[in-house]
């Protein structure tokens, strides 16, 4: 195969941006994606098969067939799990990755989120650390992401955000009924409610129309293509340069290295299952936290017997996502207006500064709910089945509000991805093995967040409430997975430098949520995008034809 400048592994939030930045700068790029390229026509509005409710499988991959993982429970027992099961910690496998079907919340992290260890100190047993880059370093790239991807919203009602130079490019959608119920209640509590920033057109933008506000949002591809992900923004731009070759249904097997320890390309299984080699000057790994770690660990050679970038046993560690907690409130009036996306209002008052707690998280109302979501979200006194359950569905489906939020996880070195010694996928490759948990302090923070959510619902008039604050026996990585190839200055305790370049190998980059040192108290997509722009800028700046100025 013809040698190219760069191979990018994974066409998700980060990979799409890197492909665009590199191909616009004139580099020849091959973008490899294990999944398919879906479009708005693939929006099936299937309540039982999407990326959120997966009882009949993932709509946008991976398929249950041939893609197992292993989850090790708290007692050390391994379980083989399917992509449609929660313990798998799945992220979509398709062009656009999670951004095809996400709810599209598009948050900037707060300045403190990049300095967690300096702000709080590391709790014993945790691996809480500072990022080697700051909010100010990322700010121009957050802005670039907001304008190139297309974000609507309005931060003006909250003081809890970092400095910004420009407002968001689109106004928020008109408020739904839950917004109108929750906003005055939050203000009475002295909080600062505001419109959630969303990668969603509220007005025509980027050649596509606005959200039509349907019931099938988070977990679904958008029927009118009003949700903005890499698949309908940066990837088409990359392809239009003529410098980018997107190859779908291609699963990368390993990063190939030469005798001097530099990458010389990748090998991959193409759509027909044939093993191919793609030579390249550099390799960018953007496969999401679990799969990027797996690829590095599977790329073993004489010089890298434990996997690429893994000289100090750091690849796969500090796996984290978000610990979601909150509350559900039941009302004696209709709260449901059948107007998507439902999630509209948030507060960031509780992200930082609570005495005795190392952080917190944003709280927002939940996305618009489908009936299948309500069957197990009824008042605690409801019978689980029978006429009482059926009646409760009628009583409460339109009369409940969920407030929930991503508690920032306190990472540990033991929450990690390794390779399973026995289980193989359909290509015969060792699969991801997930073990460990978050630090127990995460649960303490989450419990406090749930009580804040409940207080807000009560103030809004809820006649009954129930806390939603479990203590899962696993890291909750899932669609917010991060942290397996930590960014840092010290090669002994991190995998990549501040430019997302592997310490050991100067022509291999990891650019995706894997490099997040901590994961903020917000949905991570916009930060993944900002880091991708930041790292791409450094990569292009240091590129010298076939090598690096370093």
């Amino acid at each position, binding site marked *: 195969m013809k040698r190219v400048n760069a191979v990018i592994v994974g066409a998700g939030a980060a990979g799409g941006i890197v492909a665009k930045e590199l191909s616009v700068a004139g580099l020849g790029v091959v973008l490899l994606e294990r999944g398919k390229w879906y479009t708005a026509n693939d929006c*099936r*509005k*299937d*309540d*039982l098969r999407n990326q959120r409710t997966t*009882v*009949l*499988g993932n709509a946008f991959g991976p398929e*249950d067939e041939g893609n197992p993982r292993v989850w090790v429970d708290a007692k050390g027992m391994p379980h083989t799990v399917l992509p449609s099961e929660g313990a798998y910690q799945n992220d979509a496998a398709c062009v656009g990755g999670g951004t095809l079907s996400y709810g599209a919340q598009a948050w900037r992290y707060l300045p403190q989120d990049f300095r967690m260890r300096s702000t709080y100190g590391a709790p014993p047993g945790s691996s809480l650390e500072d990022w080697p880059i700051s909010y100010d370093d990322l700010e121009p790239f957050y802005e670039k992401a907001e304008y190139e991807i297309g974000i609507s919203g309005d931060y003006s009602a909250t003081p809890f955000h970092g400095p910004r130079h420009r407002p968001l490019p689109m106004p928020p*959608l*008109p408020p739904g009924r839950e917004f109108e119920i929750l906003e005055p209640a939050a203000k009475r509590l002295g909080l600062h409610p505001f419109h959630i920033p969303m990668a969603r057109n*509220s007005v025509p933008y980027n050649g596509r*129309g*606005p*959200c*039509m*506000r*349907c*019931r099938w949002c988070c977990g679904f591809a958008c029927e009118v293509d009003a949700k903005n992900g890499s698949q309908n923004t940066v990837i088409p731009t990359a392809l239009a340069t003529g410098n980018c070759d997107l190859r779908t249904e291609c699963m990368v097997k390993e990063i190939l290295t030469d005798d001097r320890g530099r990458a010389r390309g990748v090998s991959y299984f193409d759509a027909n299952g044939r093993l191919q080699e793609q030579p390249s000057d550099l390799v960018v790994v953007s496969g999401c936290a679990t799969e990027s770690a797996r690829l590095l660990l599977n790329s073993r050679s004489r010089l890298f017997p434990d996997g690429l970038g893994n000289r100090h046993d750091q690849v796969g560690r500090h796996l984290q996502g978000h610990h979601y907690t909150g509350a559900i409130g039941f009302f004696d009036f209709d709260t449901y*207006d*059948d*107007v998507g996306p439902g999630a509209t209002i948030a507060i960031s008052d509780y992200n930082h500064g609570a005495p005795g707690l190392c952080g917190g998280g944003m709280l927002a109302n939940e996305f618009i709910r489908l*009936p*299948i979501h*309500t*069957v197990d979200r009824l008042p605690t006194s409801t019978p*689980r*089945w*029978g*006429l009482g*359950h*059926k009646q409760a*569905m*009628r009583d409460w*489906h*339109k009369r409940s509000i969920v407030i929930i939020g991503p508690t920032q996880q306190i990472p540990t070195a033991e929450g990690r991805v390794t390779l399973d010694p026995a289980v193989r996928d359909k290509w015969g490759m060792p699969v991801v093995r997930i073990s460990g948990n978050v630090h127990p302090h995460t649960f303490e923070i989450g419990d406090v967040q749930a009580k804040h959510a409940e207080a807000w619902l009560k103030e809004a008039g809820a006649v009954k409430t129930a806390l939603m604050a479990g203590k899962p026996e696993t890291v909750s990585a899932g669609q917010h997975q991060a942290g397996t190839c930590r960014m840092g200055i010290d090669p002994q305790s991190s995998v990549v430098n501040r430019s997302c370049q592997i310490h050991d190998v100067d022509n291999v980059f990891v650019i995706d949520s894997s490099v997040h040192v901590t994961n903020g108290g917000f949905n991570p997509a916009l930060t993944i995008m900002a880091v991708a722009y930041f790292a791409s800028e450094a990569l292009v700046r240091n590129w010298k034809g076939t090598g690096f100025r370093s």
Partner: protein
Amino acid sequence: MTRRQFVAVGAMGGAAFAIGCKAPKQGNWRFLSEDQARTLAAICDRIVPADDFPSASQAGVLTYIDRQLTRHYRRHRDAYRDGLARANAMSINRFGRDLAGLVSEQQLQMVSAIEQEEPKFFDLVRSHTLEGYYGSPRHGGNRDGVSWRMLGLAEPPPLGRTQYGLRKGSGE
């Protein structure tokens, strides 16, 4: 059976009978035998009984489960085969008849007993019943979106509306 249930069964069940139970021979179901289907219907219809709106089986839940047992739920085939056999054995042991042959009150007792004594099987059937009843009609359950209409949701949902069509307080 209350008058209300009788009316509902008359109205909704007629259609179900026409589709599901006309010819009691092999071939109505992809996986289930007729006996298994009758037993499963008895359990599903206690999980979502008929009232003003149809029961689980009347809304097509058996079609949903049967179809998925040949697709995504192939891995649950043994659980259904064994669970339904045990449920009938329990019923014969307690009441001298199989589950489908019991009167409504006895079925209710039996399903409570299954929930207690076979919790894994019961939870599986409960989940699948609620999926079939409240999920998308495309999979054979929730026939004509009946559960969505029961909840007061527009069915079919309004299409093509934009924010410009939305007015505060208009309910749209």
